[in-house]
């Protein structure tokens, strides 16, 4: 299996990427009769790694397992060189981890400063002065200096999200696990988040789950697409976009043969699938590639051959 390709088995990084710091083999997780992860193999190197997939695909379950808050049913894990299934390994990972859950929850009666300070103590920062300096630093990074002493209950949803991001950045962790970090952020804040991640998380391994394909295109060096608990793609964002090569068309009218079609802001109809009459081919985006992938159950041999060539 190559880095830029459809995945059915192990997904290793390309030769020009650094060696992986996080890898999973045969990862399985079941909740009652629901299979959340079905034998997932993946490897993530330092840099920003995106996880794409529809709701219920298993993204959050995978991130929770890697963040050591949920045990896997089966599979082998290697996180930052240790096995987090053992007590010592788990502690070692937690000491080097920054985690933003999908729904982090906040103590509404705490101020932003108090909350991040509380998390800093849980991350073993016991000396008050350096801890407070670090708390101010991370709150400054997300632009909350002026409101850090306001109660969280009085902050907007986007600002609470930024409090969550700030606590994840405490101590410049080696592994950042961010579950939908840009949910609830306005476009300007999302751009700021990208800027912040590009610098603050440089050198770290970042695992980022998102529904925003433009975030993936802008941020990620590596992207994994999860569908029904299985990895369906592992590669670069451009590789994912390439799945839709020669399949994205712009036409003046909707064509019934299109797999997907929608009206763009310019009044044109963007088609994915067979070319409509009078349409012209356009450059595919990551979103097009994702939609092509999500629109079918299994990748075809033709896809794999096309990518290999």
């Amino acid at each position, binding site marked *: 299996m190559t880095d830029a390709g459809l995945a059915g088995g192990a997904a290793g990084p390309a030769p020009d*990427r*650094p060696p992986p710091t996080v890898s999973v083999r045969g990862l399985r997780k079941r*909740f009652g009769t629901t299979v959340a992860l079905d034998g997932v193999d993946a490897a993530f190197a*330092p*840099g920003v790694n995106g996880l794409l997939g529809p*709701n*219920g695909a298993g993204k*959050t*379950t995978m991130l*929770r397992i890697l963040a050591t*808050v949920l*045990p896997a049913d089966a599979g082998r894990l290697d996180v930052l060189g240790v096995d987090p299934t053992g007590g010592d390994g788990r*502690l070692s990972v*937690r000491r*080097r981890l920054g985690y933003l859950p999908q729904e*982090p*929850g*906040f*103590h*509404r*009666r*705490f101020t932003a400063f*108090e909350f991040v*300070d*509380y*998390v800093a*103590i*849980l*991350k*073993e*920062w016991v*000396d*008050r002065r*350096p801890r407070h300096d670090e708390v101010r630093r991370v709150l*400054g*990074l997300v*632009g909350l200096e*002026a*409101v850090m002493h306001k109660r969280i209950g009085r*902050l*907007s949803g986007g*600002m609470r999200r*930024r409090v*969550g991001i700030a606590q994840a950045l405490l*101590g*410049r*962790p*080696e592994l950042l*696990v961010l579950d939908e970090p840009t949910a609830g952020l*306005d476009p*300007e*804040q999302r751009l*700021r*988040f990208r*800027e*912040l991640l590009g*610098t*603050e998380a*440089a*050198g770290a391994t970042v695992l980022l789950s998102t529904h925003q394909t433009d975030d993936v295109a802008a941020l990620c060096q590596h992207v994994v697409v999860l569908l029904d608990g299985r990895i369906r793609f592992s590669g670069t964002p451009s590789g994912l976009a390439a799945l839709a090569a020669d399949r994205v068309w712009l036409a003046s009218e909707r064509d019934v043969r299109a797999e997907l079609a929608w009206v763009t802001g310019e009044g044109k109809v963007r088609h994915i699938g067979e070319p409509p009459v009078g349409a012209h081919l356009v450059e595919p985006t990551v979103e097009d590639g994702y939609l092509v992938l999500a629109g079918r159950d299994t990748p075809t041999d033709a896809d794999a051959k096309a990518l290999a060539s």
Partner: protein
Amino acid sequence: MKRIRSWPGERSWSVPLRPGAADGPGTTRVSVVRDGRPPARRIAAALGRIEARKLALSPWFLVGILLCLATLQIFPSIDADIADEATSMAKILQDMPFTAHPFVALMLLAGNRNATRARRDRTEELFHACPATSATRAAGALCSTWLAVVALAAFVLAYLWLTASHSESDLGPLGSAAVPNGLTTLVLGTGGVALGIALGRWVRLPLAAVAAITVIAVVDTWLSAGDPGVIETPMLLSTLGTSGSGHPQPVLTAGQAWFHFAWLAVLTAATAIVAIAPFGRHRDNRVPTTRPRP
């Protein structure tokens, strides 16, 4: 580019330049290293400062303080007025655990609210990904009990001083059982907070603290019932002491007072150990029952 301010007083996100900011993928990243790893007790102590602040600001604590102030306003003057052979400073001090019970009950509720905060606010998943365990967090909450002890100590001293200052006659010395009787009141405050934390950590029922207070009230009343003028051993096993029977009782001997204190101290220590016990599902901070949202 124009920076949009989305909230009054808020500045835009910024990324200050600092050493290491230019690190690229592939470089070895090292977390901010702190000398050594702190023992759990230092983490608990640091958490305790925040927990004590939250306890002091909790409505339950404030109601408890108001109740104490109301008690100080009313009862010392009554005690002083009815002073006779049956009411002495020693007897008043002996009755302090009974008088302090409403405050202790409110501290139990406050401790319980602190201990269940993570569950109520759904921050457990985030906290579970941190190196400090839930046992350490509970120990942090337990470190806030000094606040209850200080408040009760101030209450007892104020009560005795006000009674003495209101009384026209000599109420006598505090007696040989003064130390254990005073300590009994203070240990009750610790026990109340500890029980609230233990219940918050191990019992998932929302009204567990209220149920516990009810049970304690019933059991205490039953234990402290006895013949008037006679102190029986079951009375010493009640947190109320000898005043719950509703009948005038003689002053405890030093031995009896020390027995009562020791019993409550053991009970409090056992409750505190349960509150911070690192076993079961709390041992390794995992939430195996969490289900993904569809």
